[in-house]
């Protein structure tokens, strides 16, 4: 009986990595930033709500450590206009430095 049911309903195993998996869309993913909407003040607020050490700032750059990001969504809550989920989950890297991203801060300078 269970065998027939299995035939009827098909295979449950994902085809990933050969094909994409539909459940990937529902995963929490690290944020992507809109440089035109970022100002230094806004970035400072985002840094203060970040529970880890994922965000840091120099004079005109947001330093985003993807490896330290817990995808909690805190920065997206305080700055929904500047932050959007990246949708990327295939983030494994063979160098730690590859996970540190420089985002230009372009807002408020025009």
């Amino acid at each position: 009986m269970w065998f027939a049911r299995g035939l009827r309903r098909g295979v449950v195993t994902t085809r990933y990595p050969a094909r994409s998996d539909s459940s990937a869309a529902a995963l929490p993913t690290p944020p992507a930033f809109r440089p035109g909407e970022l100002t230094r003040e806004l970035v400072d607020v985002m840094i203060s709500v970040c529970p880890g050490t994922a965000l840091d700032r120099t004079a005109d750059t947001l330093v985003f450590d993807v490896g330290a990001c817990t995808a909690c969504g805190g920065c997206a809550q305080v700055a929904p206009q500047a932050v959007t989920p990246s949708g990327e989950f295939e983030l494994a890297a063979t160098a730690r430095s590859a996970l540190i991203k420089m985002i230009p801060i372009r807002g408020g300078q025009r």
Partner: protein
Amino acid sequence: MKPGPDETATAEELRKRIAAQFGRSLHIRTLDTGSCAVCEQEIRLLAAPHYDLHRLGFFFTPAPRHADLLLVTGPMVRAFELAARKAYEAMPGPKVVVATGACALGGVYQSDPFVHGEVDAVLPVDVWIPGCPPSPLALLHGLGVAVGRLAEKTPSLTFVADGDGNAR
């Protein structure tokens, strides 16, 4: 190893050898160095029917002496340092160390008298898998990268969203 002009060529050669050796069957030993156990839940899910990592030739082993890959979670508490080193030294070469989760990558705890704060402070990490926790799909991708079967995507990602909300 001394860095030399042919270092890149050596790294490429090593990568090919790892892919040739580990391409079909790889045994994984997990090591919890003080994680909250959510990474372990996601790792356990890899063996569930939906992800079924055995179809890809990956297997879990309870003994580091049988393992090719050390999947390390947690911020490496100092009390665990000796055990972590022993587990690494007990593994036969060639061996791969994969740091898993934001704690292991140094994003949650700072180095203090109780924790090192990152796995790389104690063990030579080869692959970093971000996430809190990394989903089973992210872990599968990380294992694929570790054995040279899947390509890395991270170096080409910018995390800059353009106007219509697309990353890259």
